[in-house]
């Protein structure tokens, strides 16, 4: 990444990190206010408690649920913003993949696709450009969004050896087999082209197979 590109990226990261911190404060205030309402309910004399519980119980539960949802999203976004702090850093690959999956869920849903991250994940750290790695992961996902029918599921898993690791993106569908021409469709898309360019910068080798994409991460100077 050129210095100018890094500065621009870092700017996005700084402002986003700052805004997400503000948003966490908003959620904290909402949560405490809902908590105080619950406390008042608890202290309300028995004869009025049941009626109040009926009227306020559901909205309070909704507030708590949505605050938890907001916190999860903001935490991911904050982590994403901080990935721009350094041009190169020690990256927790599992944490990064999980975060990107969370942030990409809505985009996936817009194309009718679901995302999952599962399996036993090896502990893997890489010294790399975290932003570039996320770009590779995202373009790999996007290449599949464009190629898969609605109601497909993309499952991400991590595999590793001492010298090479991989992130596998496998597609499946509840009602039909994956089309045999999936690899060709993926390779014809603009996202695949973007993925190849992004991968070159940090020694990530993408490959297609009959169920999706594999990103091979070479451990040039990895830290396990």
């Amino acid at each position, binding site marked *: 990444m050129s210095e100018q590109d890094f500065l621009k990226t870092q700017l996005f990261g700084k402002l986003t990190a700052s805004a*997400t911190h503000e948003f966490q404060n908003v959620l904290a205030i909402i949560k405490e206010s809902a908590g105080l309402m619950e406390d008042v309910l608890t202290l309300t004399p028995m004869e009025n408690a049941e009626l109040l519980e009926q009227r306020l119980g559901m909205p309070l539960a909704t507030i708590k649920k949505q605050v938890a949802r907001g916190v999860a999203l903001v935490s991911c976004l904050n982590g994403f913003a*901080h990935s721009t702090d350094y041009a190169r850093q020690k990256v927790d690959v599992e944490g990064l993949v999980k975060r990107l999956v969370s942030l990409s869920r809505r985009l996936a849903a817009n194309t009718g696709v679901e995302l999952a991250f599962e399996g036993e994940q090896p502990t893997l750290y890489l010294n790399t450009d975290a932003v570039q790695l996320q770009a590779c992961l995202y373009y790999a996902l996007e290449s599949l969004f464009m190629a898969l029918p609605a109601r497909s599921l993309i499952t991400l898993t991590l595999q590793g050896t001492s010298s090479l690791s991989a992130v596998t993106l496998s597609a499946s569908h509840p009602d039909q087999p994956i089309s045999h021409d999936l690899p060709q469709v993926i390779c014809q898309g603009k996202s695949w082209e973007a993925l190849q360019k992004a991968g070159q910068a940090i020694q990530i080798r993408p490959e297609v197979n009959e169920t999706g994409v594999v990103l091979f991460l070479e451990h040039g100077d990895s830290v396990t």
Partner: protein
Amino acid sequence: MSKTKIKILLIDDEEEFASTLAERLELRGYETRTAVCGEDGLNLLAGETFDIAVLDLMMPGMSGLETLRSIKSSTPDMPVVLLTGHGSTKEGMEGMRLGAFDYLMKPLDIKDLTLKILSAVGASDGKENE
């Protein structure tokens, strides 16, 4: 002599958060004073005795870490529990290195906070009795 109510100094620049949290703590039997910045918190500390401080790390002006340093300088035996946001764990750990008892992430669960307060004050009481 054991105190009947634990007295908490709550320092957070988000006034609505601090006042609502203070009210919830008071409902649970704690006595609280709130301050919206580090300077105000230190002024309160100069005039009153507290059992514990709960301190937001990310504050404009005098930062949470600067406030913590000043608190530890003036009242080294008073425990401090830090409040930080998700994504600011590095600052939380720096605070621990500077002598904070522990840190919690916002939005927090009041049960977690009260457990932390009891633990911190209990540990502090133990130290005084040594």
